[in-house]
């Protein structure tokens, strides 16, 4: 139908459901044909600004259990919004199957089209194909899990009282950052499997039993060490996921309390991939909407006016002020992501000699779609930047590296955008997106469950960066609430292994 192809999808700024549907179909067609995107089915929901604020307050999820902190965040967001300090997002997208996209009712039709391309196709494709999301989250189950969590916590509130539930949630929230598996895959064994394994292990021990071992003389001096080592092995220590450890091993918790901790932990884990792929995720969505809108315009399906409106919004989104601008608040992930991806397209299609030196694999290979699809599927922010940040882009952004040493009165410019600095800047920028490395590394190292049950945590101090005293004490108090016995936190220098500080809950006035 070449005649209908050339027709405008919409004109004017009012939207209705018929137009939204037509636009979605047209965009999806182009996305699949031209960009070979692969998406979950989409569910578009129209909401008002008030509902958008609601969604903000409950970490962007359509369902959430109740907690006072969400009420507090709501008030902050509302204030910022009312004062005009911050506009609301035009959309919100949820990594679920079907992929839920919220559209604000205030948006004009052009904006709705832009948002549809951005969220319903860009983010959606990324959620479905990126390996982190595929491996770590279960898009199909998240909504039903949240529903379960909300009901479960409401039931606990009825049965045990608001205060009791709040106490556990407060404590669990304080440890959210330490409640994710960063390196090891979360254990997925069902209880049936676990029992089977335990049985098999016992059988093996029985089979290999030999009375002779008993007659061997025991080396006295190492028994203490051995004990400790065995104990640690049994509890799987050291353990980086504090919430997981407390949920499984705390002597003080009742089953419902463990379940609440588990809920907080599962939700934190669900969000972990999103935090690792912010630049890529937004970059992918922005690249997709920008490309699709231009393609639709080229095909004569959207008017110049609409395209201009979209471009004006687009450029607001990807605005990146310099470090000395009062508006500067860090690197804009939309801008960085989009530039990285457009730069890849440039390297693949029209490389310079420099690009051929730096990216021999992809420079001039011609198929930018394939390169991008692979990158979206295989990388997270850290590896993506390490792999694809080109000298040309470093020059364009005029990146520079600043060394900040707490004891010195000055910052030092360590590298700038020159031949000597490219590698260093690329590596430092990539490192700054390594979520795991940029949070304090705190692990459970030891506990004697049969003895005084003193829970020992260890903070590996990297580059001398210590913990802030007050929040550390407050958080330790929360750990103690969940553990029930003495808890101490040792700060150990990651390089030398020397203990820098040791803080126990008995030293903290409650």
């Amino acid at each position, binding site marked *: 139908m070449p005649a209908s192809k050339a027709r405008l999808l919409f004109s004017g700024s009012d939207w209705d459901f018929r137009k*939204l549907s037509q636009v*979605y179909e047209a965009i999806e067609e182009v996305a699949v044909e031209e960009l070979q995107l692969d998406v979950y089915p989409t569910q578009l929901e129209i909401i008002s600004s008030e509902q958008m604020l609601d969604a903000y307050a409950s970490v962007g999820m359509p369902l959430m259990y109740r907690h006072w*902190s969400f009420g507090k965040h709501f008030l902050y967001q509302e*204030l910022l919004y009312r004062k005009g300090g911050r506009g609301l997002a035009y959309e919100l997208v949820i990594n679920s199957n079907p992929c839920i996209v919220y559209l604000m009712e205030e948006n004009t039709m052009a904006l709705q089209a832009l948002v549809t391309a951005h969220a319903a196709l860009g983010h959606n494709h990324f959620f479905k194909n990126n390996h982190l999301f595929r491996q770590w989250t279960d898009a199909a189950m998240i909504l039903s899990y949240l529903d379960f969590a909300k009901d479960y916590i409401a039931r606990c509130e009825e049965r045990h009282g*608001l205060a009791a539930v709040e106490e556990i949630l407060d404590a669990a929230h304080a440890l959210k950052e330490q409640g994710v598996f960063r390196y090891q895959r979360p254990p997925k064994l069902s209880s049936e499997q676990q029992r089977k394994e335990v049985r098999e292990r016992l059988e093996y021990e029985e089979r290999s039993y030999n009375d002779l071992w008993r007659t061997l003389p025991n080396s006295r001096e190492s028994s203490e060490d051995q004990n400790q080592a065995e104990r640690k092995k049994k509890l799987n220590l050291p353990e980086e996921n504090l919430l997981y450890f407390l949920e499984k091993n705390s002597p003080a918790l009742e089953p419902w309390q463990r379940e609440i901790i588990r809920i907080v932990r599962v939700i934190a884990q669900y969000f972990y991939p999103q935090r690792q792929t912010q630049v890529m995720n937004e970059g992918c969505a922005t690249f997709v909407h920008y490309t699709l809108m231009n393609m639709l315009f080229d095909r004569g399906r959207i008017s110049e006016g609409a395209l201009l409106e979209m471009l004006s919004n687009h450029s607001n989104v990807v605005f990146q002020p310099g470090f000395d601008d009062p508006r500067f608040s860090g690197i804009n992930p939309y801008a960085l992501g989009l530039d990285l991806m457009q730069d890849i397209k440039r390297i693949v299609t029209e490389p310079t000699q420099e690009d051929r030196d730096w990216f021999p694999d992809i420079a001039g290979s011609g198929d930018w779609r394939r390169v991008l699809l692979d990158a979206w599927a295989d990388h997270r922010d850290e590896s993506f930047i390490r792999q694809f940040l080109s000298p040309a882009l470093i020059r364009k952004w005029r990146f520079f590296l600043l060394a900040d*040493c*707490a004891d010195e009165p000055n910052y030092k410019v360590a590298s700038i955008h020159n031949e000597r600095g490219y590698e260093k800047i690329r590596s430092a920028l990539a490192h700054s997106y390594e979520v795991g490395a940029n949070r304090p590394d705190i692990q459970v190292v030891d506990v004697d469950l049969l003895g005084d049950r003193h829970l020992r945590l260890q903070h590996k101090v990297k580059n001398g960066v*210590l913990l802030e005293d007050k*929040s550390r004490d407050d958080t330790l108090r929360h750990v103690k609430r969940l553990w029930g016995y003495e808890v101490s936190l040792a700060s150990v220098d990651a390089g030398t292994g020397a203990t820098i500080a040791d803080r126990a809950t008995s030293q903290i006035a409650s």
Partner: protein
Amino acid sequence: MPIFIDRRLNPKDRSLANRQRFLRRARDELKQNVRDEIRSRRIAEVDAEHTVPIPKRGTSEPNFDEARNSGRRERVLVGNKQFAEGDLIPKRAQGGFGSPAPGDTPSEDDFRFVLSREEFLDLFFEDLELPDLVKLSLKEIVAFKSRRAGFAQSGAPTNINVGRTMRNSYGRRIALRRPKREDVEAVEQELASLRAVPPSHNTLQRIIALSEELERLKRRQKKIAYVDPVDIRFNRFEPQPLPNASAVMFCLMDVSGSMGEREKDLAKRFFVLLHLFLQRRYERTEIVFIRHTHEAHEVDEETFFYSTQSGGTVVSTALEEMHRIIAKRYPVSEWNIYAAQASDGDNFVSDSERCIALLDGELMRLCQYFAYIEIIDERESEIFGATENGTSLWQAYSNVASQWSNFQMSRIAKAADIYPVFRKLFTKQPTVGKST
């Protein structure tokens, strides 16, 4: 084909439960805030919109955080214009790059939010120990009655305004030239009379023409409804507050040196509570403040609570002043008169007799209600608790109380004692009328 869901009509206030949890969490801080606010506010505005800063104590969410002033870091920044490798940049005293200059961001104090009337009163009532029923009846705003307010195009069938509807229908029928019943009947009659006589060529022609005409008229009648949905008008009703009589509230207080900060604070809560009650019952309430030492003056609220005056204590001067003001400005036929008196009980011995005479003679007949509180020390409350002996004023007023059912008195040492004074006021719900 995507699925569309229109969520706009979903119930609002999804986060209301979270808000309530937050308010409960910060209860103590908010209560303190409300208490301060009551102290500084005018009585009549106590339950107006109320903004409070977002409480910080008890609502922090700690986690293991890095200390900003330790260790070595590397930061990648954008937009280098002049730096070369090895340059040193002096650190600013506060923050670093990326933290906006002071003044750009709203300061913590700007983060204030609005408590609803209900939330505010909840906090206010908390240590007054009001029975729940009373709390409810105080929170409820004036009763409404629906009043006719023009016409509407939608409404319940019972509210159809027939006159309007038929007028619209008539106008529409004329405009669209709907055939009238008489016209149709005339044609039918003519047709019938033609059919009655033996047919001729002329009559036959006429009959055919007439039947066609008849058919056309009937069709048109059918097409153009007699009453169409667009004609229908409904009576519109608007809720309006019940017309209530006006009330005036006299606040009498002893301001001699013995009334300290605590006493005044308690007295103010006492006045506030009475005022809330009056506000609910009467459309219009006025407050008159009379303070007295050995002489009485009508003053404004500011002076009433915050300025001190030295002198002796002659209570009857305040009663006289009140009497004078009633006579001058508040005729009993138009106003319901309420009085609330707070004092520490000191009075000249001879004057107490005069107070009895004043109240018995005139004032109690004019007043709907007279409440007296004697603010005593918390330690004294045990001694005086139940006994009838006390200050001379207390004894004098006891006499009045035994004779007049609308006179209430109580000793108050803490906020929770205030309510019993009003118990009678709240338990019985007389229809609002004039006392005679």
